């Protein structure tokens, strides 16, 4: 990195726009900037740091705004650094916008904005991380402490044990940034791989658990299938029961039907019997009519001739009929006492012409009402009815006999039917229940099968877990070996360089110290602790030596100079307060040494540190000289004025 120009706008005491040309000529590495205290030396030093790395806080940014500028109006504070690095040209601008604010009040400011132009092409660095990474690649922040330093402040390297960051920074400037990055990245990858391996082991364990669960599920499915099979048997059994009941019911109902038929047949038979009885009664009436009809001609004749002409034997026949005391007439009709009395009265009447005439009249009427043709017809009808009824009776009795044979002993089967119906109902209920249960179990089974299939597929997909664990283990081992290899390389390279740095630091120290006779040189431990080796052979930590402030500064400068000599980073050295409290010998030695510290050295000094005589010592190495002077018009503003030497 070689700075060409720095441009300041309303930055700290620099009101308005200012620029310093920092190009160095061949063999003239020094740029001197002179200023009294509190004029802007440290501000200019901070401008370099701010432009590259930004501020740590908003308050710091507010302090960067020039007070005079913000009292006047809204504006912008910016630092523009133009430099070349690794054959490319860069322009980095960091800026903040501020609002007008009264004197003594911090102005309202915007966020920092970083613009980067590389070889004339603006770079798109959207995030803070991208911006930091970009700048870090040019000059890492941690490494910058060895390039941009305060002459008095560097004593810290001799007064305290270096922390991890200092150690890292030293390793970084020793040119093994790539290896250090590789080490950090491999550490991260190792952690990632360990984490992934842990995750895989967890997955594997879960996978095994799931495999057990899938097996359990398989058993459940088998059990369910058996249950469904059992249900199928039960359903079959229930169906058979229902069918059996149906068969029994069919048979019983048939019997019941026959019982009913028998009852109907019995009823019909009884009806026929009643009809036969009525027919017999009618037959008897008919016989009476017939008998009367048989005696009607006689009675008619008697009524004509009178009773006197009726022979005695004929009357005797009537009397004999009455006297026979038979309870039946010749017409087979029963003869009760009333009829006998009637016959007696009629016989008595027949004794006279009046009775005979009465009987004769009756006979006449009878013949009129029931002529012989009618009686004949009736006789035939009665006979036919009787035949039909007897035929029907025979048929019904035959039917009853046949039904009796079929019905057998089952006279009333309704109880059996009821029992069979109850059994069938229960069997049908069982059947329905089993069917419903089977349906439920089939649904459950299909769900379990789907679940089993899904889990099985998942298991199959995870089947590579064992292989993954194996691979991950291999990757982890490989990563660990690579990490060990990189660490080995770092150690080796750092060790090599460290020896070189220590050797050079010793040389510089002996060149700068005011008592070279007392010391042999400087040693650097593995932890980058600086040790002083005295002529007597004693080796002590610098802090054990309790050196003076000046001596500490000389030791630190020696260390930093040696470090810079072996650095992989080509960067300018910008020194604020370069001399500090050094005695004249140290001061002279150090001033003479500064041109050797790097290819571009910017020295920010105050007049009492370096006189013109001191400057004359390095005059031939100076590329340009500048002076920071307070603006006589504005006590809050500093002017940058080039110093022209004859």
């Amino acid at each position: 990195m070689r700075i060409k120009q720095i441009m300041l706008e309303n930055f700290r005491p620099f009101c308005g726009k200012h620029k310093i040309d920092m190009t160095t000529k061949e063999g003239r590495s020094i740029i001197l900037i002179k200023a009294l205290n509190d004029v802007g030396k440290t501000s200019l030093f901070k401008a370099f740091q701010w432009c590259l790395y930004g501020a740590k806080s908003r308050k710091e940014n507010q302090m960067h705004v020039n007070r005079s500028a913000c009292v006047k109006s809204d504006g912008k504070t910016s630092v523009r650094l133009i430099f070349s690095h690794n054959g490319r040209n860069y322009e980095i601008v960091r800026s903040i916008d501020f609002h007008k604010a009264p004197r003594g009040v911090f102005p309202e400011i915007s966020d920092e904005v970083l613009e980067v132009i590389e070889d004339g092409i603006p770079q798109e660095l959207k995030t803070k991380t991208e911006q930091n990474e970009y700048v870090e690649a040019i000059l890492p922040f941690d490494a910058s402490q060895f390039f941009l330093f305060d002459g008095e402040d560097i004593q810290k390297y001799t007064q305290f044990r270096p922390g991890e960051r200092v150690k890292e920074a030293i390793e970084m400037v020793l040119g093994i940034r790539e290896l250090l990055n590789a080490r950090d990245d491999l550490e991260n990858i190792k952690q990632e791989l360990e984490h992934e391996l842990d995750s895989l082991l967890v997955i594997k364990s879960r996978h095994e658990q799931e495999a057990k669960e899938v097996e359990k599920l398989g058993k459940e499915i088998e059990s369910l299938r058996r249950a469904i099979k059992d249900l199928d048997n039960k359903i079959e059994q229930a169906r058979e029961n229902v069918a059996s009941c149906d068969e029994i019911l069919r048979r019983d109902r048939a019997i019941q039907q026959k019982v009913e038929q028998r009852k109907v047949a019995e009823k019909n038979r009884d009806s026929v019997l009643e009809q036969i009885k009525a027919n017999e009664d009618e037959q008897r009436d008919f016989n009476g009519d017939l008998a009367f009809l048989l005696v009607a001609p006689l009675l008619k004749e008697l009524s004509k001739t009178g009773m006197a002409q009726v022979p005695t034997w004929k009357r005797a026949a009537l009397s004999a009929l009455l006297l026979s005391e038979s309870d039946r007439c010749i017409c087979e009709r029963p003869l009760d006492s009333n009829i006998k009395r009637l016959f007696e009265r009629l016989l008595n009447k027949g004794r006279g012409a009046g009775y005979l005439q009465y009987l004769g009249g009756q006979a006449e009427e009878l013949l009129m009402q029931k002529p012989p043709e009618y009686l004949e017809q009736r006789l035939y009808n009665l006979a036919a009815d009787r035949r039909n009824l007897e035929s029907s009776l025979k048929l019904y009795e035959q039917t009853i006999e046949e039904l009796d044979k079929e019905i057998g002993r089952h006279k009333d089967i309704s109880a059996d039917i009821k029992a069979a119906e109850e059994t069938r109902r229960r069997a049908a209920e069982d059947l329905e229940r089993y069917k419903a249960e089977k349906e439920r179990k089939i649904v459950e089974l299909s769900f379990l099968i789907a679940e089993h299939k899904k889990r099985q597929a998942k298991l199959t997909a995870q089947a590579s877990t064992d292989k993954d664990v194996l691979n991950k283990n291999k990757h982890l081992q490989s990563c660990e070996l690579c990490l060990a290899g990189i660490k080995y390389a770092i150690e080796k390279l750092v060790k090599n360089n460290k020896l070189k740095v220590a050797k050079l630091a010793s040389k510089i120290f002996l060149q700068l110290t005011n008592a070279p006779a007392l010391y042999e040189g400087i040693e650097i431990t593995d932890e980058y602790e600086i040790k002083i080796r005295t002529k007597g052979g004693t080796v002590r930590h610098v802090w054990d030596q309790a050196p003076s402030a000046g001596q500490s500064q000389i030791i630190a400068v020696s260390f930093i100079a040696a470090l810079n000599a072996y650095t992989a980073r080509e960067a300018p050295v910008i020194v604020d307060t370069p001399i500090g409290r050094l005695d004249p010998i140290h001061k002279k030695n150090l001033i003479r040494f500064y041109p050797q510290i790097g290819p571009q050295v910017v020295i920010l000094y105050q007049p009492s540190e370096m006189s013109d005589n001191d400057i004359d010592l390095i005059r031939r190495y100076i590329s340009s000289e500048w002076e920071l002077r307070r603006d006589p018009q504005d006590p809050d503003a500093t002017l940058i004025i080039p110093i022209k030497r004859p």
Partner: protein
Amino acid sequence: MRPSRKEIEKVLREAEITYNLRENVLSEIYNAEARVVFKGRRRGITSTLRRIIINATKEEEKTNEN
């Protein structure tokens, strides 16, 4: 005075032999890091290094199989 590429390569090869690593695996890692340092953006470097490690493991397996 940056350590020369030759010096770095030599040390890396020495490390590869010491830790029984596949030849050039550390050089590949170094080159990948050098590329991102040059580009100034570290995005993707972790996956690149992982790929190098995985490839190295695979190649080692192949060598062992043969």
